[in-house]
């Protein structure tokens, strides 16, 4: 889409596109407007497919978008892309509703009635950029500016980082809820500790015979769900060596747990104990076929299987059986998932799980765990690192202390995504000027003075090295599949133009004329690489193919076998879980989980995702709390009764879903609903944000939010609200009838 096309250039079969069926009279005046200048790539009425990268979550799947007459009509997986191999998840499919969302901002805007007024006044971009440049240059000290970002595409991160460094400001703080829930930061730290490389490892589910997943919702939202699902498909029925086995360890039966062959309801926080006990049994009883376990004995010298069994409430027999299955498998892999990282003892548990891969010698082996090969050029290797909650806390402290004069927020929605107890909502009021880059008016953008509305990902340039990657180096490219619908501007472009206005070191740091030329320069470094699945004769030819393929990747598998560090010379740490809230007063563990459709709440403004039934509860649109039937009976509540959920930090009123697959001492609430702002579809759902309940405690090892370590109590309210479920309540439990 290099041609500049204006909106009216497109053929408008106006009536055909919008009218309802059936009733139209035959003789009607339909205007057809031809192109003034025909674009080279489109044929009227014929679909043109553009390859790009999905940005509905940070996984970085390749997509192809069907466009007809300049309008995107359907998103599908890019069949050539090694990560997702043509497949796509529900969120990826719904991407069009980000692009065509009726609640998108159509201009750069300034809040005319003051912050929080929700009254907006459109600005010309030159005006808005002048305003921003003026704010930046009038800062007393560069430290008085802060940039808070979500997990952004790599090129944007690089531009931001370069600009901030040039200005003398601290690098952007990258933090969002999705990363927190999937435990991206702790997982990186685990790799660093275990393999000495700060890269997310790839678990080779496809080739594995036995997969032990400890709180990783592999096929829902964790890390790269599509790639993992593709792997599941071949692991289950695509291998010659037989059907693989999956065991899921988590307190609530997730959709992944339902797809697993066995679900072990471990006590929250005790997943590490299970891993330790399994490891101990394998080492002690010399299970499996890897020969001597002498090297590993030291790891488990302090572990008592019975104690572990008691603490995790998994019987010794089960542990022994599982240990046997894990050790006897030709290829087995244990996966430390997001729920582990959300515990106070998260890091210790993750270490214990990763150690299992070590004792069955599956590190670097097929069907085990390996690291993806880094991108071939240095420039492409720089990518956003997720910050810790402590960094965010520091920022909040600085904001409260009045040390931040200008706050830039991109791709994250801290007012919604951070536990309310952290006090971001209060802190933002102490910042004199807040700039948001959100394309939507979300909870945070309401508190921004200036919203420099970004393009949606289907209108933007960019690239991303998927992390975790796959069995070969991959760089996904992102390109506009349609011309921008509105007068929005991509943040990368805004930064480049800001630098140009600021001059000096800023413009030296990012001297490009526009983001496209920046990307072109970055990407054509790959030109001539012998690894690639394609190569061109000239750099411009390479640029074309890069966009046509939707990125660059190696033709062959290249896996990197990680080295283990000396962590394996010491006994594995054993840390007792800690929970916030007195167990007497707050008898239940709260398990907030990321919803398949809405993830961390980003999908809430897309009606398709709102109407998508949750796989386990089949509820559409709503928010609920899942209770074990026994718990529900004790509380005297049944389906659809509203209960009051209280933690030491907040309360929430929500309908009950009696859920057979959850421990009686755990209650689960999906994350994603309860938006105050963020458009009509997000606000259509009544209910408040479950994150308000969360205790702001962290795992001391990783300084990451222990989002699974809050205790709550429940009390019935006597009211009812019917959940929009697909499944008939009357029919529930009567399956034997069919």
């Amino acid at each position, binding site marked *: 889409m290099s041609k500049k096309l204006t909106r009216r250039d497109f053929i408008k079969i106006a009536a055909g596109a919008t009218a309802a069926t059936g009733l139209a009279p035959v003789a009607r005046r339909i205007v057809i407007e031809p192109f003034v200048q025909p674009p080279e790539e489109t044929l009227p009425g014929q679909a043109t497919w553009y390859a790009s990268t999905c940005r509905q979550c940070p996984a970085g799947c390749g997509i192809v978008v069907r466009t007809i007459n300049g309008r995107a009509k359907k998103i599908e997986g890019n069949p050539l892309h090694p990560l997702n191999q043509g497949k796509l998840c*529900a969120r990826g499919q719904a991407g069009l509703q980000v692009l065509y969302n009726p609640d998108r901002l159509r201009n750069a805007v300034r809040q005319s009635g003051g912050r929080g007024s929700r009254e907006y006044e459109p600005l010309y971009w030159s005006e808005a950029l002048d305003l921003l440049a003026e704010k930046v240059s009038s800062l007393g000290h560069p430290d008085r500016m802060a940039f808070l970002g979500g997990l952004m595409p790599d090129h944007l991160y690089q531009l931001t980082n370069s600009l901030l460094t040039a200005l003398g400001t601290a690098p952007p703080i990258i933090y969002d809820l999705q990363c927190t829930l999937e435990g991206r930061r702790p997982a990186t730290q685990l790799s660093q500790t275990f393999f000495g490389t700060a890269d997310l490892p790839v678990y080779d589910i496809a080739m594995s015979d036995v997969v032990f997943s400890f709180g990783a919702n592999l096929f829902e939202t964790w890390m790269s769900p599509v790639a993992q699902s593709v792997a599941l498909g071949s692991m289950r029925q695509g291998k010659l060596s037989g059907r693989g086995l999956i065991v899921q360890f988590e307190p609530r039966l997730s959709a992944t747990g339902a797809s697993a062959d066995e679900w072990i309801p471990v006590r929250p926080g005790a997943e590490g104990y299970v891993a330790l006990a399994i490891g101990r049994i394998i080492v002690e009883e010399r299970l499996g076929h890897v020969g001597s376990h002498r090297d590993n004995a030291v790891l488990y010298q302090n572990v008592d299987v019975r104690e572990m069994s008691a603490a995790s409430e998994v019987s010794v027999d089960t542990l022994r059986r599982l240990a046997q299955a894990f050790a006897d498998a030709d290829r087995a892999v244990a996966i430390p998932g997001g729920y582990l990282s959300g515990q106070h003892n998260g890091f210790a548990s993750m270490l214990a799980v990763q150690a299992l891969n070590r004792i069955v010698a599956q590190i670097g082996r097929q069907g085990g765990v390996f690291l993806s090969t880094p991108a071939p050029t240095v420039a492409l290797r720089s990518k956003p690192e997720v910050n810790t909650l402590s960094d965010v806390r520091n920022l909040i402290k600085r904001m409260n202390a009045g040390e931040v004069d200008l706050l830039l927020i991109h791709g994250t929605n801290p007012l919604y995504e951070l536990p309310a107890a952290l006090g971001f909502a209060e802190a933002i009021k102490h910042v004199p000027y807040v700039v948001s880059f959100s394309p939507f008016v979300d909870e945070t953008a309401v508190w921004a003075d200036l919203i420099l509305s970004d393009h949606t990902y289907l209108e933007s340039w960019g690239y991303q090295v998927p992390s975790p990657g796959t069995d070969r180096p991959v760089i996904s490219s992102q390109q506009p599949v349609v011309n921008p619908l509105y007068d929005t501007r991509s943040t990368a472009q805004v930064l480049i133009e800001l630098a140009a206005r600021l001059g000096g070191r800023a413009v030296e740091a990012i001297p490009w004329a526009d983001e496209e030329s920046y990307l072109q320069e970055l990407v054509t470094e790959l030109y001539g690489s012998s690894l690639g699945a394609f190569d061109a004769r000239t750099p411009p030819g390479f640029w074309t193919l890069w966009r046509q393929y939707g990125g660059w990747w190696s033709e062959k598998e290249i896996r990197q076998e990680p080295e283990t560090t000396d962590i394996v010379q010491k006994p594995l740490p054993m840390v007792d879980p800690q929970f916030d809230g007195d167990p007497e007063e707050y008898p239940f563990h709260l398990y907030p989980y990321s919803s398949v459709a809405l993830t961390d709440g980003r999908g809430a403004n897309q009606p398709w995702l709102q109407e998508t039934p949750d796989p386990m509860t089949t509820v559409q649109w709503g928010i609920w709390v899942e209770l074990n039937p026994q718990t529900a009976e004790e509380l005297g509540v049944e389906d659809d009764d509203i209960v009051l959920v209280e933690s030491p930090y907040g309360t929430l009123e929500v309908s009950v879903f009696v859920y057979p697959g959850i421990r009686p001492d755990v209650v689960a609430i999906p994350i994603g609903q309860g938006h105050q702002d963020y458009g009509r579809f997000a606000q259509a759902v009544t209910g408040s944000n479950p994150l308000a309940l969360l205790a702001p405690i962290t795992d001391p090892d990783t300084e990451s939010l222990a989002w699974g370590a809050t205790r709550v109590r429940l009390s019935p309210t006597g009211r009812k609200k019917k959940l929009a479920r697909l499944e008939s309540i009357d029919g529930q439990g009567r399956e034997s009838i069919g």
Partner: protein
Amino acid sequence: MAKDANQSDEGIRWALVVDLDRCTGCQACVVACHAENNLQIVGEKEAAYGRWTHWIIIHRYWEGEYPNVKARFMPIMCQQCSEAPCEPVCPVFATYHNEEGLNAQIYNRCIGTRFCGSACPYKARVYNWFRPEFPEPLTEQLNPDVSVRTRGIMEKCTFCIQRIRRVEIDAQAEGRSPTDGEIQPACVQTCPTSALIFGDLNDPNSHVSQLAHSRRSFRLLPELGTDPGVIYLKGGEVNV
């Protein structure tokens, strides 16, 4: 009009295989179907009253009790029965059986008696209870190959007839016939675990007809004698 599928050995019979061992209930097919087929969004209130419009839904069945509880997923869409109970009851032939084994639904012929919906044992048909609403610019997304149904019309899974037709026309233009696996309904295309496989059941070499002969294969409610064109493969077993 309705030709007995058992006799049509030479013709095409489109069929969908659903491998329950692979299905993770991820709902990608549901959204893909919404995107491809211009399904309307009804909102929370109507959805709670059973008026959603999903053409494919994933049934989730509980088995056992805590702690030995299991949940199984079963995607259910129009079963494209050869002996469809919905076909004979339509007074105006809005639904009928076509030569390629599809249970066709002609939207603009439908007068909305909902008899087919009552007759369908799988309840795979959905009805447009109200006019669809697509707040601007969501209309831009509408697939031009599929009509937008107004109120009072029954609709259901078509096996993405528009995608079948598109591939057939393109193949014809190239002077060949579509290859096995080339035609993919939206749900099949997107299914991350490849739990859905589409093809011609009457072609003995096609992937679906081979899977249909698998030991794991079964059809939904076989005792009703509807002869569905959707074939399920049991989960939890190895296919040898």
